[in-house]
């Protein structure tokens, strides 16, 4: 029993050690301590009513993963999964300028993909980007236009 317990502890410690070691060298490494959640100011939140009026004017960016986006998104929205920002940014960069109104959203009250996307866009100088909280759910619930499938 004592030996089994010792071995189990060794398995745990080895797993931790390998994980930490790989994270030192991996190109997909992440910081050891979780960075704080990006702060979004009140003025960066767009109410649903205003977002609705900006349909066709603002660029809508869906921060969720491609399968979620393809299963249904705000009509005309483009997909910019924040988890894979670099790979997808080039596809939408041509649509954006520092003065373009941009609306980012994801799904769920606790979803912070759009918070992170907003922070990335702000850092790149896109100052007119705003966030529609719980976007996909509230948009659908209001019966506003949606589409399915890959990016337009």
């Amino acid at each position, binding site marked *: 029993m004592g*030996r*089994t*317990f*010792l*071995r*189990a502890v*060794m*398995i*745990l410690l*080895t*797993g*931790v050690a*390998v*994980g*930490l070691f*790989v*994270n030192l060298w*991996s190109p*997909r*490494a*992440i*910081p*050891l*301590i*979780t960075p*704080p*959640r990006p702060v979004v100011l009140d003025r960066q939140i767009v109410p649903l009513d205003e977002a609705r009026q900006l349909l066709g004017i603002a660029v809508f960016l869906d921060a969720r*993963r491609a*399968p*979620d986006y393809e299963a249904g998104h705000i009509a005309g929205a483009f997909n910019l999964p924040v*988890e894979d920002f670099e790979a997808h940014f080039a596809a939408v960069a041509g649509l954006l300028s520092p003065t373009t109104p941009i609306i980012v959203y994801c799904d*769920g009250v*606790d*979803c*912070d*993909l759009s918070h992170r996307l907003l922070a990335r866009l702000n850092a790149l100088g896109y100052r007119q980007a705003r966030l529609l909280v719980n976007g996909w759910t509230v948009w659908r619930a209001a019966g506003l236009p949606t589409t399915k499938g890959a990016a337009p």
Partner: protein
Amino acid sequence: MKWSGIILARLILGVLLVFAGAVKAFNPQLFAYELEQYNLVPVPLIHFVAITLPWIELLCGLLLLTGFWVRASAWVATGLMVAFLAAVLSVIVRGLKIKCGCFGTVGTEFVGWWHVALDAGLLAMAVWLTRHGKE
């Protein structure tokens, strides 16, 4: 009969743990986001768990598959399954609508009773191996 049961339990647990560990180890950032949705791990520790947990799963699965330290890895698997079971149950109790994240991007369905059943089944196998697997 018991001998083939042990092999089968080792295979099923081992393959699933290796698979679940590998996909998450390959993309710790994605796993960290999934983990954050559960709201169970204190925020500063989320990355640490996302970096290390997949490798514990992977190692544990490899040991079960190869047959080294079967009882010890079965104890680790038991611990993992208890934690996973508690996590998915808490999601259901709290009424959260989140992705499981159990297998990275593979399977994007929301957490539901199916996950409870899977974890409970795997937990039973792991517990059984802690008693009947070879040292």
